[in-house]
């Protein structure tokens, strides 16, 4: 599972790309758990970049909702 081939992969010489691969893979699994929790089937066709972006958005939205709910 990776952002792309060669230097876009988890062993990229570019540290930022390497980190994005790591966060992307984590986001991919987060998304599968979110789907299972919603009673949906896992989406194994989900891309790593899509998962990364969706996860960033989701985490930010969740934290905003959490802050708004704090007394």
């Amino acid at each position, binding site marked *: 599972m990776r952002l792309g081939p060669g230097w876009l992969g988890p062993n990229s010489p570019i540290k930022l790309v*390497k*980190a994005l*691969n790591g966060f992307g*893979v984590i986001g991919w699994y987060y998304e599968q758990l979110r789907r299972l*929790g919603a009673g949906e089937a896992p989406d194994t066709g989900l891309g790593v970049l899509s998962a990364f972006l969706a996860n960033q958005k989701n*985490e930010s939205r*969740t*934290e905003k*909702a*959490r802050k708004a709910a704090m007394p």
Partner: protein
Amino acid sequence: MTASINTALTLESGLTFPNRLVKAAMTEGLADPRNRVTESHLTLYRRWAEGGIGGMITGNVQIDRNHLERAGNVVIDGKPSNEEMDMFSRWADVGKSHGAAMIMQVSHAGRQTPKLINPSPAAPSPVALGLLGGQFGQPRAMTLDEIKAVIEGFGRAASVAKQAGFDGVQVHGAHGYLLSSFLSPLANQRQDDYGGPLENRARLLAECVRESRVAAGPGFSVSVKLNSADFQKGGFSFEDCLGVIDILNELGVDFVEISGGNYEQPRMMDSEGLEPVFEQNVRESTREREAYFLKYAKAVQARSQLPLMVTGGFRTTEAMNSALAEGEADLIGLGRPLCVEPDTPKQLLSGEVAAAAQ
């Protein structure tokens, strides 16, 4: 009798796993905005329970809402209301509905709390994470009163877990979160009773374990997740791990889950951090290359009689059964395969498949 994935296991606390496959803790991120258990948790754990797993360790339940690993973590930082308690009980019930043991993982995220949640998280020392992207804030050193509150927090969570019907708690002492960072000579530069020699660095972990046991009372499983190493130069080493195992042995924990790594060196994700992995000097074989922490478990087994759960990389029944038969592991932890195929345990136990999804 030779152990296999189909063999039951009863621990010192009296807790029985009907088979040796255990869902390792994975953060769910499914709590509501007030960090409470939701119907999504129940749906997820019901699905896993139906899949034939022998035990489940929940994702990290935090003891402090200002120190989360993710915004969607469940939190126990006070006495739960009746409604909250009811949801904890329903969570335990659905997990146990098909015979699995249900264990709550309890944690404090420490300096690995995202900046979005807390820009100045509590940590053993003000040592920032060496990561790109500015997602984590500058930590501050905890006061002794704050340390005391953490110990009480672990006890409170264990008490709530027991009342709710969970079979046990797992104290999260791995992956760079608060207790793990206290163990690390890189992250912990304290000069007091909680820093310096290993005995001091392990003090907080030991006190949290002791408090959990006292708070929950007998007949309740208290286990620990521990890094085999942080895989960082100058960090928590395998030699340190063996020293902590001696301490946990004396404390009489129910079992220890062996893992490794942290956000800076995420070996638990089978990934490498920005800096090269600092390898530990332990011999490995082919089977151990499938399950990447097994070689450490084997060395731990030589030192202690504590039952061990090994998580990370196990995919084939051949490697799982071999590790169990050789006494290198007592429980097999599964994570990622359960995210894409919740029926993996049933399929492996029946022999329908010989390997879990990669």
